[in-house]
């Protein structure tokens, strides 16, 4: 194994040196725009993701205005929203369009592209010790497909008939029939085109991540020495490769139904005064296909965040991550199970109830590996020596959301209880905590932690602390109360509840949530400011600001194309040798040989020293 690695590696070395020569002559456009450098591509994804987060978050502010203050005139928004404000009121279809776009943007553009795109790209080569991705060109294509898809989605917001409005899950027939709502016209067409391209981008990215992790690890970086970040990105990419194509086919069939008169999802429909010709299709087919991606997607969003947190929590607790192998095991457990629980979104859709029982069983099983992860985080904090960097705070916040949101999953996964709670605010509370807030916190934590590596400067800590506390408390104030509203049965995707006696309560609480949302959203601009300011004016970063073990901190402060100016470091140990008894310092980077740390080697490591020296000799000879 290791010889193979060495071989590939040195081969790559030669190659990379060649590269560097060409590199000096790269014009601006190849260096910063159509760049093949994984670090530049990562930053492109990050900045696009931040742009989308502001758009998607801003939309939620608009509909929170509507929900929090139903009677208020929104005339003052007319300059922004134009015809969508009618007599001081928001158009109900536009409300649905906002909800739909908000969901789509947050899930796909921010937390899939923005999160995986940024950190898989940035960290995989740096942490496994590679010069770049397996294919820089495909990597570049991946970003530019994403960019194209973003442009199409963005344009769709400004169409006359409005963007797609049938919910981010775009269930047909609603999404298939332009007669059903105006957003199902051009807006939906653009949504489908954009998502099809998005999937291409995501697949190109994932294939690259998988190949890179398998083939380009530096000497000594065996699978069981990889940081948990890499494990998480690797498995996430596998999930993506297996599930996104299914969404692609679902979308393709929907395109056929919309444009070519087929009946995959349509049957026996009478709408707008006429009976359609379609018979024999099944709307449930779409839902199965959609959720076959949709549920794994939840983990595509969450796993990278969990990987990032594992790394940050271990580093800043100055302790090894507790249960490294159990963490890997639970990543695989979650990944596998995530493919066989999709129909828990469909308990009351008319699906065979027996199938419901099966999916309920499988769903509750997935709680076990998730629980193991939460316990392992907590055990890592236990008796640590915790440094609260902003990244660490956000990671602890993530664990808190992950627990709060995950626990209600046990209730929703219970089909008998889901009857009442399905499509109520209880669900909105659940997924915003466990997937929305948790993943968002993972992403922000990652930015704070790896900013020094990305830009060679430090972000301001004090702004980071304020950002954390306002956001942490704020997001709880926004999403936790939604549980109460959900228990009271309030349906989601409602423009207003006042028409129902049963839902004409909690007006105070809804107003409160909206205020909390405005504050929390505004606080994100502290972060944006800190980010932009620090790129140019931040304190210069040291080589290894967090005293971390992983390889990225062995590169120069501003790594160039190829990452390491000289040889790629060789890896001799796992990444979690923090506070090792006997060691001089409280961390031992991965590239420090066991033979040079006899004082701290564990018994089995002492035995490995010999083996290691032979390896070193072999690689020197090469």
């Amino acid at each position, binding site marked *: 194994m290791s010889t193979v690695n060495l071989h590939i590696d040195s081969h790559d070395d030669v190659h990379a040196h060649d590269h560097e020569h060409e590199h000096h002559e790269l014009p601006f456009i190849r260096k910063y725009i159509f760049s093949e450098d994984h670090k530049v591509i990562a930053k492109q994804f990050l900045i696009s993701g931040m742009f989308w987060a502001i758009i998607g978050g801003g939309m939620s502010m608009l509909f929170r205005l509507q929900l929090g203050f139903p009677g208020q005139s929104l005339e003052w928004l007319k300059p922004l929203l134009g015809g969508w404000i009618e007599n001081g009121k928001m158009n109900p279809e536009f409300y649905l369009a906002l909800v739909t776009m908000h969901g789509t943007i947050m899930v796909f553009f921010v937390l899939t592209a923005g999160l995986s795109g940024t950190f898989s790209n940035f960290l995989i080569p740096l942490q496994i010790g590679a010069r770049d991705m397996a294919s820089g060109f495909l990597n570049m294509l991946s970003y530019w497909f994403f960019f194209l898809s973003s442009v199409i989605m963005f344009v769709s917001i400004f169409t006359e008939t409005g963007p797609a409005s049938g919910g981010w899950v775009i269930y047909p027939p609603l999404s298939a029939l332009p007669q059903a709502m105006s957003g199902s016209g051009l807006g939906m067409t653009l949504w489908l085109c954009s998502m099809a391209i998005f999937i291409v981008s995501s697949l190109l990215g994932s294939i690259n991540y998988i190949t890179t992790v398998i083939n380009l690890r530096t000497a000594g970086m065996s699978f069981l020495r990889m940081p948990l970040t890499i494990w998480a990105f690797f498995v996430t990419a596998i999930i993506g490769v297996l599930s996104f194509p299914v969404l692609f086919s679902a979308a393709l069939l929907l395109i056929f139904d919309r444009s070519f008169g087929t009946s995959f999802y349509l049957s026996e429909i009478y709408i707008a005064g006429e009976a359609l010709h379609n018979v024999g299709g099944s709307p449930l087919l779409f839902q199965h296909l959609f959720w076959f991606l949709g549920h794994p997607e939840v983990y595509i969003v969450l796993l990278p965040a969990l990987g990032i947190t594992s790394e940050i929590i271990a580093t800043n607790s100055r302790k090894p991550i507790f249960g490294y192998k159990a963490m890997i095991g639970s990543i695989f457990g979650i990944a596998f199970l995530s493919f066989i629980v999709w129909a828990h979104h469909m308990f009351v859709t008319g699906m065979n109830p027996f199938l419901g029982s099966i999916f309920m069983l499988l769903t509750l099983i997935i709680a076990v590996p998730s629980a193991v992860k939460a316990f392992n985080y907590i055990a890592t904090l236990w008796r640590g020596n915790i440094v609260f960097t902003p990244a660490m705070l956000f990671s602890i916040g993530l664990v*808190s959301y992950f627990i709060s949101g995950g626990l209600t999953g046990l209730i929703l996964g219970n089909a008998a209880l889901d009857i009442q709670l399905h499509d109520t605010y209880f669900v909105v509370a659940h997924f915003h905590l466990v997937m929305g807030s948790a993943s968002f916190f993972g992403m922000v934590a990652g930015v704070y932690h790896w900013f020094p590596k990305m830009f060679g400067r430090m972000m301001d800590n004090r702004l980071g602390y304020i950002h954390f506390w306002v956001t942490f408390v704020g997001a709880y104030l926004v999403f936790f109360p939604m549980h109460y509203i959900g228990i009271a049965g309030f349906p989601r995707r409602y423009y207003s509840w006042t028409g129902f006696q049963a839902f004409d309560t909690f007006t105070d609480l809804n107003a409160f949530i909206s205020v909390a949302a405005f504050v929390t959203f505004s606080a994100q601009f502290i972060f944006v400011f800190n980010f932009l300011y620090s790129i140019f004016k931040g304190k210069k970063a040291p080589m290894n600001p967090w005293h971390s073990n992983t390889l990225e901190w062995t590169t120069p402060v501003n790594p160039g194309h190829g990452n390491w100016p000289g040889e790629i470091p060789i890896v001799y140990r796992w990444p979690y040798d923090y506070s090792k008894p006997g060691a001089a310092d*409280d961390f031992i980077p991965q590239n420090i040989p066991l033979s040079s740390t006899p004082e701290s080697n564990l018994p089995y490591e002492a035995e490995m020293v010999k083996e290691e020296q032979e390896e070193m000799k072999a690689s020197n000879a090469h």
Partner: protein
Amino acid sequence: MISILIISGILLFAIVFALLFRTQVLLNVLKGSYNKRVDVAGNKVHGILFVIFMIVFFVGMFGYHEIAKKDYLPDAASIHGAEADSLFWISMIVILIAFVITNILLFVFPYLYAYKEDRRGYFYPDNHTIERIWTIVPAIVLVILLFSGLKLWTNITQTEAPANSTVIEIMGKQFAWQVRYPGKDNRLGEYNFRRIDPNNEFGIKVEDKSSEDDFIPRELHFQKGNPVLLKIRARDVIHSVFLPHFRVKMDAVPGMQTSFLFTPTISTNEMRTKTGDPKFNYELACTEVCGRGHFAMRFLVVVDEPAEYQKWVASQKSWKSQNEDYFAETLKKVTATPKATETKVHKDELSSL
């Protein structure tokens, strides 16, 4: 109430900023600490804040529950609903126990183990016994929850409708509900979506004898204590029947029939006494987004005592009797071209299988 919440929120932020500021001052005093790896005093602040946060969080969530519960839905008005509610609250207690324990650990550890210069973290990479325990204990709890849930789910969904149950058809369309009762023969007339027109919203087949006594009221009436079998469909896009007080929800899907069997147990009048609200009414809502009017698909529901229910049924006029002309005309059309219609209808039925 809301003001208490807002005040406590402001207070919390004030504490945060005060503490953060204090560190700033401390920092300036101890200029030397700049060169140190970690500003120990400032670091400790976050540990304290986590504990404060935890206390406020617990007080807030349990306290608000006490205030909010008057606005939760009233007691379930169906047999399975009452069972589901108790399972819900039992599960809630289980997860709350897990929630409280894990949160205490999560927020107290940062306080206890905040950075100290003279301390090292405890090198503790794993412990298989502990890991086994915390894999197995949740698994056991889950299995218990799972089986109680499975039993209830099977009860709700896989029971045959008893012979005495009332069959009611509910059809969703943009943006209203329509309901149809089978009349004396207790059989709903057949329908075909191609027969739908403004007079015949259901697409009822007039030539089917059992459609003659079907009636289409403006309200949904259930008989207290008698099982109700809802036959649910939609004619344009997906809708979802949600009867919050009965803990009933089932999608209405075009081209497919779904159903829900349940037994109402509390009459509207009883519920009015129970809630102390003389204007209380049961309601039917839509919970699958279906377009512009999704939020307004309200339909009135009444639960009658058996005697009242019989009276109400007797007072209903059949759809046919209200649309004699249309009925006769359509019947003529259908019978005039028997062959064509027959084959066509036949084909439709095949394809809808």
